[in-house]
């Protein structure tokens, strides 16, 4: 499995902009807009791009895709410290893989992380490679763990995979028929 797939790194990750949007105004205070509608209305007048002030955070992320070379970006998940999960029983369920939405990262395999973490399956981010600090790898999943995580992602986002399943089944049948 070639890096950065399945690896954890520090990265500069944005929070998704949400209303009220704080629009940068050159030389002045940011302008608050309470929803998407005024911005969409502005776009209808030919003005569709603005600078939204959004918070970014330096944080460890788990890269869950290969780099798309055409765009130099990856998909990644945010992490959550296990100590922040208050209930010890919930923590144990996560360690045992019984919470499908929180994927436990074993401290042995992720020894670059200062504390025990889980990847949040529902927190998918698209990150340019330029926002990932590749100086140090914090840990890595093995192939099987990545496979399980991808399955959970497909289930969490309810991705339709039936045509892929059909294609794969056809390929397997063709292979089985070959002498």
């Amino acid at each position, binding site marked *: 499995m070639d890096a950065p797939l399945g690896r954890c790194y520090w990265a500069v990750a944005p929070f998704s902009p949400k209303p009220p949007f704080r629009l940068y105004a050159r030389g002045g205070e940011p302008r608050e807009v309470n929803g998407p509608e005024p911005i969409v209305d502005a776009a209808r007048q030919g003005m569709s791009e603005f600078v939204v002030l959004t918070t970014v*955070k330096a944080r460890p992320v788990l890269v869950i895709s290969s780099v798309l070379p055409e765009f130099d970006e990856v998909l990644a998940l945010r992490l*959550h410290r296990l100590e922040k*999960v208050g209930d010890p029983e*919930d923590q144990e369920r996560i360690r045992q893989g019984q919470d499908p*939405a929180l994927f436990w990262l074993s401290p042995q395999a992720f020894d670059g992380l200062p504390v025990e973490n889980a990847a*949040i399956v*529902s927190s998918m981010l698209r990150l340019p490679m330029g926002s990932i600090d590749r100086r140090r790898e914090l840990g890595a999943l093995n192939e099987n763990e990545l496979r399980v995580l991808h399955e959970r992602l497909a289930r969490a986002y309810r991705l339709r995979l*039936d045509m892929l*399943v*059909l294609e794969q089944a056809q390929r397997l049948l063709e292979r089985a028929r070959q002498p």
Partner: protein
Amino acid sequence: MALELRRLPGDKVRVPDQRPGVVTVVSRYSSERAMVMHPSDFHRLEALDALLQDAAATDPIAFGDAAIAAHRAEETPGAPITDPAKLAALFG
């Protein structure tokens, strides 16, 4: 995903007689334009399609309280550094 059905009265079109197991390919300029098949064949294909969908369907994940809390906590900004002096000290 069931196919959308468009119904036409039989007296509005001229359809060749179909028997089960035979598909009539309507072509134009060597391109396939339409396939005419016996209703029993169509319903069999629809049933197979439904079977495939069921076989490939994935159970959605149930988000428990811990997962929901984790998602919300990590999606909520804290107190970002905006003090110009601190920013200058950090980044020059």
